[in-house]
């Protein structure tokens, strides 16, 4: 079996932060909707 080192990159950080940001935006929209 070939050896594949597990390496995490800056791009991982960007995508993971992006996931948090997207969910936070949905939460913000929910807050806005509750004020309708």
């Amino acid at each position, binding site marked *: *079996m070939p050896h594949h080192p*597990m390496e995490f990159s800056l791009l991982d950080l960007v995508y993971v932060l992006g996931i948090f940001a997207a969910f936070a935006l949905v939460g913000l929209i929910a807050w806005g909707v509750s004020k309708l």
Partner: protein
Amino acid sequence: MDSSLLAILQVGALVLILVAIHRPLGDYMARIYSSSKDLRVERGFYRLIGVDARGEQTWMAYLRSVLAFSLVGVLLVYALQRAQAILPYSLGFPAIPEGLSFNTAISFVTNTNWQSYSPDVTLGYTVQLAGLAVQNFVSAAVGIAVAIALVRGFARTRQGTLGNFWVDLTRGTLRLLLPLAALTAIVLIAGGVIQNFAGFTDVTTLTGGTQSIPGGPVASQEAIKMLGTNGGGFFNANSAHPFENPTGFTNLLQIVLMLAIPFSLPRTFGVMVGDKRQGFAILAAMAAIFVVSLTALTLFELGGAGTAPQLAGGAMEGKETRFGIATSTLFGSTSTLTSTGAVNSMHDSFTSLGGMMPLINMMLGEVAPGGVGSGLYGMLILAVIAVFIAGLLVGRTPEYLGKKLGPREIKLASLYILVTPTLVLAGTALSFAIPAIRDDVESTSIWNPGLHGLTEVLYAFTSAANNNGSAFAGLTANTPWFNTALGVAMLFGRFIPIVLVLALAGSLAAQPKIPSTAGTLPTHRPQFVGLLVGVTIIVSALTYFPVLALAPLAEGLQ
């Protein structure tokens, strides 16, 4: 057997099966979500995660639970893919690149199952089973839970709560999806779908060459792929692959599985709101659209223009000869009228007008009958709009199931029907409007330039934002732009509508019930079914007609 006779028999068998299961399955689901008793295993699970099963949630608390659970799901599936190289049963496959991991994690958590990769040569068994198959179950259970919360909104009076998300999620998974998936997986194995952990088997072919035959736990994945209207295949060819869908029997079973829960949920709705006729009206509207769409697609494919289609008796490009045209169009219509997105034929090879039908099916919002849960709540939102329009026509305050539809409810329903088209049209437009992205899309992703290329990009965003997952396969989507943009479209296309549905549910549950009077619009009669079908079609037609005219319609007229 004559192919048209075969098609009629197949549709007849499908209708009979769906009619037979509609009532028992619908009633069973109503019992699951109304019962005050917990199973022992459920009680143990609630203790483990620290949930009070009797604790009711407001719409905001219910939503917070949905979002928290889904966020953890996305992060877990992302991490599993990035760590694939060190996981057991990875078949020697390396870690999935960042952009693709992002896209796939969101894809499976949002019940979309868009696949920018070839699964059989990308994913090992641990990611397939611990990551994707788990999400196939729970993302479906989340969809049903949200629909049930909306139904409770209609059924409850002067209450500030909608139930408990964790209880609904657990019951949907343990009492509905797991037993049905286990049972149907065994039937699929008996029908010839493979189930093993054999990895790749090298064989010598008759001509002396070598071929690597993939194995894998396919049947267990296949059952929930269809039952949960997920659609993500174990193999790249999806249900066109003989190991995933070997015979006419497994093909029919897969179609039944896609439709079983979505076509039974209106019964659950009728039972829970205390008027089964209301559920039947919703079911009738769903069925009417389904029949019209299936007929149109089948006629377009049977009448394919050109010498080759005429010799083959129809447009056979991209279709399995073992299934033929009518079986392929039945599968394609079912897959895109639900939110499944599985394919047993290549939609990119459909005739230009035929290819427009899956596109339209998704653009209707996948409500006929739609995804598990999402189809019912989508159709109920359209019912709210239909009642509002009827109210405008006769000058009365609109009310549905004894609930007044005031400015707040109409604003929420209107926002709901705007979210997905915005994502679809903005995503498609951005792919061509930004010069750097346009160059990349045209040089790397689009295999068929011109009008068909535009349809391919439009199809990708329509599929992603509607959480369908089927693809016009002539588009290379494993690029930074498509992985990211489609990922964002899937995430917002799933959760922003859920925000609006739960807000509407909360608003309805808090209202008193108004007794119906002589002036109340009856919502269980054929007249309302016709209105609902009309509103569903008009809302989509007005939104999407310009872009359809630019892409598949223009291509069909060439």
